[in-house]
């Protein structure tokens, strides 16, 4: 067994460490500038200033107006607000188009709309997980309310052609939403054709429990949360000032570091693909190039993903799996099913997701440990590989 001096975190698609500079930016807003941003007094005015400053900073990262940014508790809420809020505000339109590889925070609101009598079209993807923009065009009907296609997939990293899809939606007068949780800060986003966009802070070295929804000016949404009328009536609830400040700091950090971090993560990904592909019985899930820089997903024949994650954990390496063994229906992840990974391989999937703190040494250590762990598990499996 290889002894490790440190733990290696390769699960940045699940969540990330809050960056030290982000924590420092948040610090004063817990017990110094702790006012309610709606209060009239100085404590409140200081908090309001911080919230509006954060809104302007985030808007700037997207090249949009501050009044088009609405703070939420995270991307799950942002996705729900986009989908259900748009539906409730436009009751005459009863059809939604999405894809089979969306995050559950998009799929489940869509499934809920179906229980309310809506039609939902779930588009297929190709073997790399890409949606065909022409399939979007073909699915649009007179009563189509919304098209929701993620910017980059959280399990396999595949980048979706959202610029083209957004154009088609605009040609046809259909609203276009994208879940940009994994893509924001990593790749350029075509805001000119996006009507609604969801982001979460904790995926980009910001705090958990805060996110935002970009809503193009002029789009009406019905709120999910009613109360004090915060966020111009769209999202009631006292502003999470430290979280919002932290998200803005994380967004600025991600944008300022992008030119340095993203090429590094791409190099790591290329190296992971090159090295893991050399092992017998492995398959890359997702596109070799048209991918987010930080997500790499492989399947390993003859072994099951959860065992692989647990064995790597023994070595201090944190990863994740789209394997099914923890789901009651025993099916592998909907994403791996949608790209038609054979079931024997889908059960042995491993997601490696890097971040700004990942080092070349950590990748080297992971690549040294992995073959040993794979060989150990294959040795006790009835399915022999590479013999």
């Amino acid at each position, binding site marked *: 067994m290889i002894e490790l001096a440190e733990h290696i975190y390769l699960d940045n698609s699940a969540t990330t460490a809050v960056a030290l500079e982000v924590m420092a930016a948040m610090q004063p807003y817990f017990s110094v500038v702790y006012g309610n941003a709606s209060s009239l007094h100085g404590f409140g005015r200081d908090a309001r200033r911080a919230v509006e400053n954060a809104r302007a900073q985030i808007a700037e990262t997207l090249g949009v107006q501050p009044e088009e940014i609405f703070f939420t508790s995270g991307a799950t809420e942002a996705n729900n607000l986009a989908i259900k809020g748009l539906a409730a505000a436009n009751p005459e339109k009863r059809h939604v188009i999405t894809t089979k590889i969306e995050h559950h925070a998009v799929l489940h609101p869509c499934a809920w709309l179906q229980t309310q009598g809506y039609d939902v079209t779930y588009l297929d993807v190709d*073997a790399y997980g890409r949606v065909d923009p022409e399939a979007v065009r073909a699915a649009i009907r007179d009563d189509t309310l919304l098209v929701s296609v993620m910017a980059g997939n959280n399990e396999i990293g595949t980048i979706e052609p959202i610029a083209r899809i957004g154009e088609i939606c605009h040609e046809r007068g259909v609203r276009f939403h994208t879940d940009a949780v994994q893509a924001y800060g990593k790749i350029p986003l075509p805001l000119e054709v996006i009507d609604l966009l969801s982001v979460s802070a904790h995926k980009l070295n910001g705090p958990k429990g805060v996110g935002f929804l970009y809503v193009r000016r002029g789009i009406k949404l019905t709120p999910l949360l009613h109360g004090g009328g915060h966020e111009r009536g769209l999202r009631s609830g006292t502003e999470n000032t430290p979280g919002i400040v932290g998200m803005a700091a994380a967004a600025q950090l991600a944008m300022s570091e992008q030119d340095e971090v993203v090429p590094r993560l791409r190099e790591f990904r290329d190296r992971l693909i090159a090295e893991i592909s050399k092992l017998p*019985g492995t*398959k890359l899930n997702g596109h070799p190039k048209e991918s987010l820089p930080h997500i790499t997903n492989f*399947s390993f*024949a*003859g*072994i*099951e*993903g*959860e*065992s692989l994650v*647990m064995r790597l954990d*023994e070595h201090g390496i944190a990863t994740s799996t789209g*394997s*099914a*063994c*923890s*789901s*009651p229906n*025993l099916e*592998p992840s909907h994403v791996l*099913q949608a790209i*038609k*990974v*054979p*079931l*024997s*391989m889908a*059960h042995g999937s491993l997601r490696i997701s890097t971040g700004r703190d990942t080092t070349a040494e950590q990748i080297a250590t992971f690549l040294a440990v992995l073959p040993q762990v794979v060989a150990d598990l294959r*040795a*006790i*499996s*009835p*399915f022999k590989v590479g013999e």
Partner: protein
Amino acid sequence: MYTEKVIEHFRHPHNQGKLPDYTAVGKVGNIVCGDVMWLYIKVEQDTSGREVIADISWETFGCTAAIATSSMVSDIAKGKTIEEAIAITNKDVADELGGLPPVKLHCSALAADALNEAIYNYLVAAGRDIPPALARRHAHIAAEMNTLEQRYAAFLETQEAAHGEGG
């Protein structure tokens, strides 16, 4: 989520691999549901002429719980007489591991099923009478497998269309 005992058996499993001189094998599970267990037994007569499981081993494709239950069932069954081994239940396996998360209980069932099937196959090959309880369980295991395969048949067809034999 897992007990220390489960983790311990997962990290350092007992009796893994394939016995070179096994008398019978029980094969259960299906790759479509992510767990496959092959359990090998070597049956010998002890000094008092009783048939015992003198040696046992397994090969498992599955999660942490599947590997830990494989290890545990082999520990429990080793040295037992055939009659004693038949009486081993999935609850015995789960209990010995200090319990399993509810979603993983099927893994302990798989381990007990594999032992059941190995003994069944041994008795059939030896031309013995099959105890009714063992025969009932065998029929139940076969029926469950059938149901699973049917449930996944449609999905597998779409897979084969896309990938031929697959991985």
